[in-house]
């Protein structure tokens, strides 16, 4: 494999953004294929990195050949290689699936849309790969800025939601920057490995603790952890369906990754779980996040808003599982990053598919959809079952590890919150299914099969259905292979001292 492999997932989308901008103005048909090639290359290099990491362990790479601490070091281990594959795969599938939607929704703005999207992916993969705390901030802002713009491009309330997202997002990023500043003050380095090496001597320092809390708070805002989640439901539910499909599965998951990276690699588990001893408090916060996210979801009457609040609850799953501080919990959290990305992609994609044929995503619009759009609804059912946590879909297995972690840690509040949220998810999804299952109560209701002939069937375009079906199948495949995923990859992503 090429020694420059770790740079490719960042560099290729970055260059493709340039290409799209230059070539796209002359030919409107070019941006999509360019983005497709770039993301395919990104996915392949991510898979290559994964293979290398599995074969050789951690890979280091110095951007531009500059050694740290002067240059920026990239560092690939099991954790970020895994999340990178997930991000690239989700982005690629989303890109393919939304082709028609983008054409329809952004007719004259195809070039900026795809430019922003590949830059968004650039930012995310940079966040994942970088081993430098300040570089992470810059890439965080690249991903965020493009995300704001992608959401703000939509119609209706999207610009307003985007603007509120900017305000919250900037607070989050600035807090992170501030935290990094304090760390730099105390240690004189920004390289994560160096930071980890120098921090143990400073465990008693209040400034280090402050730096950690400020970073964590900033990341909580960015990942939409209750109660600083308020930007997310509006942003995701009002975004155009294409932007929602592309962004929703990725942003929060990458932010969870950053939290895990900062806590495990920079501050070390000893510091986070033992010296500070805040695990219990954060898990309780996540209990509140899970419960409140679920309760708010119940109160919504639009499909995409329901899904958005479910994302908020799922963030609670991952944060809580991680801060349990034991192997099962952290395994569950990392596995849930993978699974939740796939699940969110599936349900948002299904919602997008439904929106091609119905006027809006209010629940009342969904009547009779099982008959009209059986494939899209079937995919939504699979996604829903996975979010509920029914085996053999992948959602069951991450929930299994999370519950197991909760029991190991003796944190029964967390276990109860997980079960509560599963039950609420049953109610949420079956409310949707029920409405879609029952016909509008019209005159022809009931016993005449000819009244709903094949002519009533009008599913989403095949270009959207095919990726949707792939994702739905993937949910089951991920479930069946979760044992391998955990034993081959995730176990190596967790420091050995955590049991």
């Amino acid at each position, binding site marked *: 494999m090429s020694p420059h492999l770790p740079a490719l997932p960042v560099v290729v989308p970055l260059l493709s953004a340039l290409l799209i901008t230059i070539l796209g103005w002359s030919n409107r048909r070019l941006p999509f294929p360019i983005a497709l090639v770039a993301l395919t290359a990104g996915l392949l290099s991510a898979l290559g990195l994964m293979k290398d990491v599995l074969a050789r362990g951690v890979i280091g790479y110095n951007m531009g050949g500059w050694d740290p601490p002067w240059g920026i070091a990239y560092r690939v281990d099991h954790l970020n290689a895994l999340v990178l594959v997930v991000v690239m795969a989700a982005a690629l599938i989303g890109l393919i699936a939304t082709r028609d939607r983008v054409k329809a929704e952004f007719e004259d703005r195809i070039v900026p849309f795809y430019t922003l999207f590949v830059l968004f992916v650039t930012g995310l993969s940079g966040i994942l790969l970088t081993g430098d705390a300040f570089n992470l901030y810059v890439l965080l802002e690249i991903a965020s800025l493009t995300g704001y713009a992608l959401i703000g491009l939509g119609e209706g309330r999207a610009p307003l939601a985007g603007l509120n997202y900017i305000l919250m997002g900037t607070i989050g990023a600035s807090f992170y920057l501030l935290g990094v500043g304090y760390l730099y003050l105390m240690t004189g380095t920004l390289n994560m490995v160096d930071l980890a090496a120098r921090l143990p001597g400073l465990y008693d320092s209040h400034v280090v603790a402050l730096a950690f809390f400020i970073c964590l708070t900033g990341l909580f805002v960015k990942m939409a952890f209750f109660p600083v989640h308020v930007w997310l439901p509006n942003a995701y539910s009002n975004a155009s369906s294409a932007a929602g499909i592309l962004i929703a599965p990725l942003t929060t998951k990458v932010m969870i990754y950053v939290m895990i990276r900062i806590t495990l690699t920079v501050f070390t588990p000893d510091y986070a779980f033992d010296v500070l001893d805040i695990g219990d408090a954060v898990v309780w916060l996540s209990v509140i996040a899970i419960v409140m996210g679920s309760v708010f979801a119940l109160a919504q009457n639009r499909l995409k808003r329901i899904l958005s609040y479910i994302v908020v609850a799922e963030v609670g799953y991952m944060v809580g599982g991680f801060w349990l501080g034991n192997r*099962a919990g952290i395994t569950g959290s990392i596995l849930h990053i993978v699974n939740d990305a796939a699940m969110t992609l599936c349900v948002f994609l299904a919602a997008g598919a439904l929106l091609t044929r119905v006027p809006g995503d209010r629940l009342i619009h969904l009547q009779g959809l099982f008959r009209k759009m059986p494939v899209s609804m079937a995919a939504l059912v699979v996604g829903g*079952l996975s979010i*509920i*946590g*029914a*085996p*053999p879909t992948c959602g069951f*297995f991450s929930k*299994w590890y999370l*519950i*197991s972690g909760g*029991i*190991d840690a003796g944190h029964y509040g967390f*276990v109860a919150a997980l*079960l509560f949220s*599963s*039950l609420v998810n*049953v109610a949420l999804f*079956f409310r949707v299914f*029920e409405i879609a*299952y*029952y*016909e509008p109560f019209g005159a022809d*209701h*009931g*016993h*005449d*099969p000819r009244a709903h002939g*094949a002519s009533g069937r009008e599913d989403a375009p095949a270009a959207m259905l095919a990726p949707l079906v792939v994702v739905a199948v993937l949910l089951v495949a991920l*479930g*069946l*292979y*979760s*044992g*391998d995923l955990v*034993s081959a990859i995730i176990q190596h992503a967790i420091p050995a001292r955590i049991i």
Partner: protein
Amino acid sequence: MESIVSLKPLAAVLVSILVVPLIIRSGNRPNLREGWTFAAAGIKFLIVASMVPAVLGGAKLELTIAQVLPGAAIAFRVDAFGLLFALVSSSLWIVTSAYSIGYMRGLDEHSQTRYFCFFALSLSATIGAAFSANLLTLYLFYEMLSFATYPLVTHHQDMEARSSGRKYLFYIVGSSIGLALPAMVYIYTVSGTLDFAAQGVMPASVPPAVLTALVLMLLFGFAKAGVMPFHSWLPAAMVAPTPVSALLHAVAVVKVGAFCVFRVLTGVMGADLLTGAGLGTLVCYIAAFTIIVSSLIALSQDGLKRRLAFSTIGQLSYIVLGAALLTPDGLTGGMLHIAMHAFGKITLFFCAGAIFVATGVKNISDMTGIGKRMPITMTAFFIGSLSVIGLPPCGGFISKWFLVMGTLEARQYAMLVVILTSSLLNAAYFLPIVYRAFFCTEEESKFDNRMGEAPLWCLVPLKLTAFISIILFLYPKPFLDLARLAVVQILGGP
């Protein structure tokens, strides 16, 4: 005891999943569509039946699908008990498919394609549960069955179906996620495995209070077993078309619940552990309570299907009781009751459906004199009643006999009284129906003397199951052999 790796269990599960696309494709050609159902049902039964010789020879057929958790795979293992249950379900699917055709076409029901699809899926889940090698796989198929039967329960898509569907989900899925799942994770956390083993997998270090909690969580968590107070989904589910009530809510679904409880008590907890902690007795009393109370409620029900539903709730607890007795005869009785009750109760449901198709009558009070109108149906009903009550010459007698022997063996004399009382109650709620159907004056009768049976597709299946109920009394050997072998496997004896 030898283990053979075999694809047969997987094939038995998959055959009815694979037939679904075919059913959908031929949705507008009903005869071809039902042909696919029959083909799948026939193949499934043959596959299941072909495993009998090997299993009776003492072997276990195994297949691991995916190692999803360390120590807990998605895996099949066919032992005598699972095979017994699979044999009952798969054979009755053939009969029910025939009955479905008569019933659904007789009433010109809508969405028949969907109906047959989900029926096939439900059967896959049932067989999967029967062949599960561990609690995880069992839970997987249990949940699959819950979701696959939801569209069947709510088939009529009216307000009543909607509220019943909600109740169904609330009880079944709510209890399995809220109770069974955490108990299962806990067991996995302390024991590191979920496999069914002869004397259970629980380490001795688990404190008795936790053990009690786990047993109760799993007993109520598998709410399909209908143990009170988690029973009221079953009467609600009676809004489904009658073939669904017949096969799923008298055989497949509810017995998967009882099967799960059986497996938990014998395979996860282990007979010795439970006896030692006195938990067998606790479960016995819970089951006894359900048996008596449900029979009393059944007495007051006028809707025929509702009365049958409450009867089912009571009969399911017989199976639970058999498991909780934890003695060889008790276990044998419990297992046999899965088979015997299935044939008896499905006959009764078939009759209820046939009456509805032929006359549109649902309530018992409107059935006075119906024996003259539908003599064959009501004769079958009488035979089914005898089997459920547990009187010779029907199969139900055999299983009840073993249960009674089991109570003596376990010295649970109170349970003996419960079983006998319940039998009397069963007679009290079934026999008046038969009596009033045949013996009434001309004035009392609500029907004229003209014969008018249900369509042949309905009639033949109920004759068949009634006939088998009698045969099972005369010749119980296949099921008895399997049950006896299963007891040996469960108790881990020689």
